[in-house]
């Protein structure tokens, strides 16, 4: 189809077209300008791909190296001992379990809270609804960094310091604005008519919401849950400030505290822990790329 369109216009401007590297005839077999440009483009992309992945070499080598150091080197003996240590070692296992508790708990809270709010925001029109949605969006621009001092004071006064349950709640609240927007958007895609049909069949509104709408918005709930999980999983500053008990720290803090204890850093342990820490995040990116592209950009791609 595009070939038909490549027929040059009746009065081409030869100089201009040559300069821009366009073929003057569609059947031109070799296009030196174009292939040169493509080679250049590939070179740039390959260079960028190297830039993106080369730093990972340390992680992948050190995690399997018996004598890992901070430097990138091919292990003289490949081993899984670092991973065995990680899971056999109380500290390593505890970090992983802690991270799962915080992120899992925050996700659970978020799914319930954001689903409820997203449903009514999508289904009811009421004065101030639009303002509310835009207000939530504005809240999203506040980073924990800006208000970490009062957040600490408030958390302390509520007894949330070093508390699984407190830290989980705080982590959940930071993921809420995004989750709320996502959930509302997902419910918007479920036609109201389906719900109305259920009412006609005698279902109460609540029942219709649970039995009919929620299953249809299921994939959306899943995507929002994934995004919330990873957001909480990656968080560094909030645990850094709210948790001082080493038994309660998540992986991010464990990595940091192990890294700054210059004297006796166990690099193999650090690398193995990093691998375990990275896996859910990478899996998530593969699974949820589409939803993520839309959420990060707030409807940037394609809508």
């Amino acid at each position, binding site marked *: 189809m595009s070939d038909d369109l490549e027929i040059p216009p009746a009065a081409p401007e030869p100089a201009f077209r040559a300069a821009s590297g366009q073929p003057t005839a569609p059947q031109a077999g070799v296009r030196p300008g174009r292939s040169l440009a493509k080679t250049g483009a590939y070179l740039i992309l390959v260079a960028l791909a190297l830039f993106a992945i080369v730093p990972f070499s340390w992680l992948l080598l050190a995690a399997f190296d018996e004598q890992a150091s*901070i430097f990138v080197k091919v292990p003289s003996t490949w081993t899984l001992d670092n991973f065995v240590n990680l899971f056999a070692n109380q500290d390593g296992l505890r970090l992983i379990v802690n991270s799962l508790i915080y992120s899992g708990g925050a996700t659970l809270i978020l799914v319930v809270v954001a689903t409820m709010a997203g449903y009514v925001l999508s289904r009811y029109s009421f004065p101030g609804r639009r303002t509310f949605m835009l207000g939530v969006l504005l809240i999203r621009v506040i980073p924990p*960094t*800006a208000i*970490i001092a009062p*957040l600490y004071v408030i958390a302390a006064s509520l007894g949330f310091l070093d508390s699984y349950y407190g830290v989980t709640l705080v982590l959940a609240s930071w993921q809420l604005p995004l989750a709320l927007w996502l959930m509302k958007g997902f419910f918007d895609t479920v036609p109201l008519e389906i719900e109305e049909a259920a009412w006609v069949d005698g279902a109460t509104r609540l029942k219709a919401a649970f039995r009919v709408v929620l299953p249809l918005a299921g994939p959306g709930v899943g995507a929002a849950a994934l995004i919330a999980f990873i957001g909480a999983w990656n968080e*560094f500053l909030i645990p850094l400030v709210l948790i001082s008990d080493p038994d309660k720290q998540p992986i991010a803090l464990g990595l940091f505290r192990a890294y700054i204890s210059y004297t006796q850093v166990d690099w193999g342990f650090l690398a193995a822990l990093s691998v375990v820490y990275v896996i859910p995040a990478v899996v998530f990116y593969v699974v949820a790329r589409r939803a993520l592209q839309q959420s990060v950009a*707030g409807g940037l791609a394609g809508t």
Partner: protein
Amino acid sequence: MRPVRSWRDVLTLVGFLTPALVLLGGFTIWPAVWAVYQSFTNKALTGFEARSPRFVGLENYARLLGDPDFHSSMLRTFAFVLLSAVIGQTIFAFAIAYLMADRPRWRLGFTPLFAALFLLPLAVPEAVAALLWASTANGTEEGLLNRGLGLIGLGPVEWLQAHAFETVTVVNIWRGIPFAMVLFAAAIESIPRTVLEASLIDGASAWQQFRRVVVPILRPQILTFLMLTTITTFGIFGLVFFLTRGGPGNVTEIIGIYIFQQAFQFFQIGLGSAAGVLLLLVLLLLGAYYVWLMREQV
């Protein structure tokens, strides 16, 4: 969508919204309001001023405005945002996305593979990203970058000592640019092919097509992304703190680290709150524009 008609509707609405309001109110809005209040006190982390802080008026703000460390931290943050978010992750990323995107008379192979690789830097948590670069940019001869330089007879460069600010900026570009490219490429591919074909038939060069067709059509998306990445970059903490803790000296002390140190290392909660309020003002201003851009989406 239906209007709220009965008391039952009102109850459902209030009941379903309350948990969200409590969470949002409790840990984001309330701390933001509390930050303003605390910024007018001499609240400390420990000691007498922790228990009974005194109202000190604008003293914290006066101290900030007179503090050269605060000035340089703000300037550094603006430079960090300009270099990594605006130039790196938006302008540069968009240009490269244009190379990657499928468009009439331009199709590169392997783009899904490139896209997958480009996602990795953003996929890793901040803490791991920092560790990766602690190794890659190690300042001794055995560091990976320096070994690369050694091959062409240069170095070793003490990346995180002598060039710490440049290094953390590059690390942040590393983290954000690939994903930005993938997003922008998707946006460019969403432009109807006929539009691009028409411009080619009219004799536009690749540059003219880029400048006169692609950029104007995607202007709203570019702006939205620019605002979002600018805002998040202002709030960056973990990546830089993990790598340098603001040092050496304070050359990488971006505003997030300044706030953290004032509040939790010098125990001046009041002063830290005041710095946070100033950051918040900048972000809410940018945020207001972002919300205005997004107003159609509600």
